[in-house]
């Protein structure tokens, strides 16, 4: 092995190992950039090196220009605005209202609560896509009533985690915005491409809930005191669902129709959510301040990882990480499909440990050129990649959805319930991934129709 390959590989392994120290992920990334620059500069100053490695701090200092590039990126402006909108919908009680009304509609179906959770999860997914917000919200709203109905803890937790993560895939999605930015792809193509696979997953989840609660009624008992579904109940439910649903439609619709840019839609969505809160009488100074502060923290923890990752990937590239991955993938003894499947397996496994942000920022730009060279459609591949990544939120040990749920669940929920609960949903995710892989039109049809 050449020196640059050894350095690049040890930089990657150091990251995986150091993650488990529990030090903030962002600063492990940034710190490793400095440490490995120092090592590389030391080696090149003292030994005769005949490969490309980092030879001076000036090269590492490009991190300043790269952070500046994140700062003046007009596409990413949408991210804090979507966060703001999600928090606003949550704090104004609008999301809660959605839940209590939809349960009335589905309360008498076997597994009705779980299906309600799935539907709200889909709506939430289509509105923002901030997993932390979706999962905590669904947990607080739906877990206590489900437990009260003596639903199995596993089914309840699994459902919430699984549908809570759909938001990262179903547009608008910050993950897709970020991927589009990194790959210079139209975000619109990715949004449209990911829509059907996202819905497919939602449908798979709902089918699973229906089937399992039919086969094993003890997992999802029917409510004893459910109101019959009368016209009045339906009308009341619809009225309650209407305002947030309209907002969501307006935001989504304007992006789909090409009327508004994601930034414009995100700003309007945030403003609309604030207006709805105002009409509900929930908007006050304290609440506005809370939402703003939480927006800052959420935005900052995501961007901290961007900042760390841009430094990390700069140095990893400086040490020949690109060439290492490219040559590694190309030398795999498989055909093109084999290489892509190998990439997906790696991403799936990385997803056990890493967050989507790191994988998107570090792995995706490394593998995308290889996949394009093999003759695959980049939009299709990116969407498949996104579905695979979405699964990483569910896979232990580092599944953020699991942490978010455990963080706000009642104490009788043990981490074991959560881990066991997500297993069938992880399998469903893999089924969805396989369908998306084999049936390319599921991804490519909508974008092709949109451009006629």
């Amino acid at each position: 092995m050449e020196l640059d390959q050894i350095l690049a590989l040890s930089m990657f392994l150091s990251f995986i190992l150091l993650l488990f120290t529990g030090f903030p992920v962002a600063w492990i990334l940034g710190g490793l950039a400095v440490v490995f620059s120092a090592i590389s500069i030391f080696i090149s100053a003292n030994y005769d090196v005949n490969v490309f490695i980092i030879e001076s701090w000036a090269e590492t200092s490009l991190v300043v220009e790269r952070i500046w590039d994140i700062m003046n990126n007009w596409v990413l402006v949408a991210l804090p605005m979507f966060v703001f909108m999600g928090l606003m919908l949550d704090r104004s009680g609008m999301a809660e209202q959605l839940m209590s009304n939809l349960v009335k509609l589905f309360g008498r179906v076997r597994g009705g609560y779980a299906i309600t959770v799935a539907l709200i999860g889909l709506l939430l997914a289509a509105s923002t896509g901030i997993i932390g917000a979706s999962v905590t919200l669904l947990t607080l709203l739906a877990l206590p009533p489900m437990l009260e109905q003596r639903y199995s803890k596993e089914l309840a937790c699994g459902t919430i985690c699984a549908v809570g993560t759909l938001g990262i895939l179903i547009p608008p999605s910050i993950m897709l915005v970020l991927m589009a930015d990194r790959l210079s792809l139209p975000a619109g193509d990715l949004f449209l491409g990911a829509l059907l696979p996202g819905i497919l997953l939602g449908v798979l989840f709902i089918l699973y809930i229906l089937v399992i609660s039919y086969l094993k009624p003890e997992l999802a008992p029917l409510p004893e005191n459910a109101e019959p579904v009368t016209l009045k109940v339906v009308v009341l439910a619809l009225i309650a669902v209407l305002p947030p649903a309209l907002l969501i439609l307006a935001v989504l619709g304007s992006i789909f129709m090409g009327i508004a840019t994601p930034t414009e839609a995100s700003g309007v969505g945030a403003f609309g959510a604030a207006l709805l809160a105002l009409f509900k009488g929930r908007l006050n100074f304290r609440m506005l301040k809370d939402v703003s502060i939480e927006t800052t923290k959420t935005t900052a923890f995501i961007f901290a990882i961007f900042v760390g990752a841009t430094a990390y990937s700069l140095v990893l590239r400086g040490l020949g990480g690109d060439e290492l991955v490219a040559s590694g993938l190309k030398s795999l003894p498989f055909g093109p499909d084999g290489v892509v499947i190998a990439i997906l397996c790696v991403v799936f496994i990385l997803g056990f440990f890493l967050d989507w942000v790191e994988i998107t920022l570090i792995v995706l730009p490394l593998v995308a050129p290889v996949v394009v060279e093999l003759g695959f459609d980049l939009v299709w591949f990116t969407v498949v990649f996104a579905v695979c990544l979405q699964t990483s939120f569910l896979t232990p040990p580092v599944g953020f959805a699991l942490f978010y749920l455990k963080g706000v669940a009642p104490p009788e929920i043990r981490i074991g319930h959560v881990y066991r609960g997500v297993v069938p949903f992880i399998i469903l995710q893999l089924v969805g991934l396989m369908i998306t892989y084999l049936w390319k039109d599921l991804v490519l049809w909508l974008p092709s129709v949109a451009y006629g």
Partner: protein
Amino acid sequence: MNPSVDPTPSEGSIHFSHIVHHTTLPSNIISLKLDGFIRRLGEIISWVWLPLMLVIIFNVTMRYAFGQGRIELEEIQWHFYSIGFIFGLSYCYQSDSHVRIDILHDRLSLKLQTWIELLGIFFFLLPFIALVIIYATPFVYDAYKINEVSQAPGGLPYRWLIKSVLLIGFILLAIAAISRLLRCTSLLFGLPKPIRQG
């Protein structure tokens, strides 16, 4: 915002502080001052999302209702956004909202956790901040010296102002990091003299 952990969140209010794992470090007289400063600044900066939202709304209105676009108002959007997230970095660290992988971390003793934090700040975070500050300074000064403006005709002037946000943001992050470093030394060595909270 109270950074301490409240295990029973009230209904309808979800704070990330309940979810993200916290190692409870003692404070000391210096860290209390530094943390207070960073927190107050973070709270003030958090208001930036409102003008950002309003500028977007204004632009959307001008564009769709009056068919006019103004580049300086487009540019001010990313100015606001970058102020929010760059200044937010220090606030986020102060309130310990950064993502940590706590699978193993949780099982370690408080003392060991604190050692990890101390070493991490010393060997990873502070060197990284130093790198950025050292090289961001000429980056900002250059922009000032050549009076850099937006490359878009009609774009915003005084590029050094928004570029200096990067520098200031990392200085603030350094303050937050030093404060936390001192909290670690308070626990491990009793220096500065720890003040237990709650």
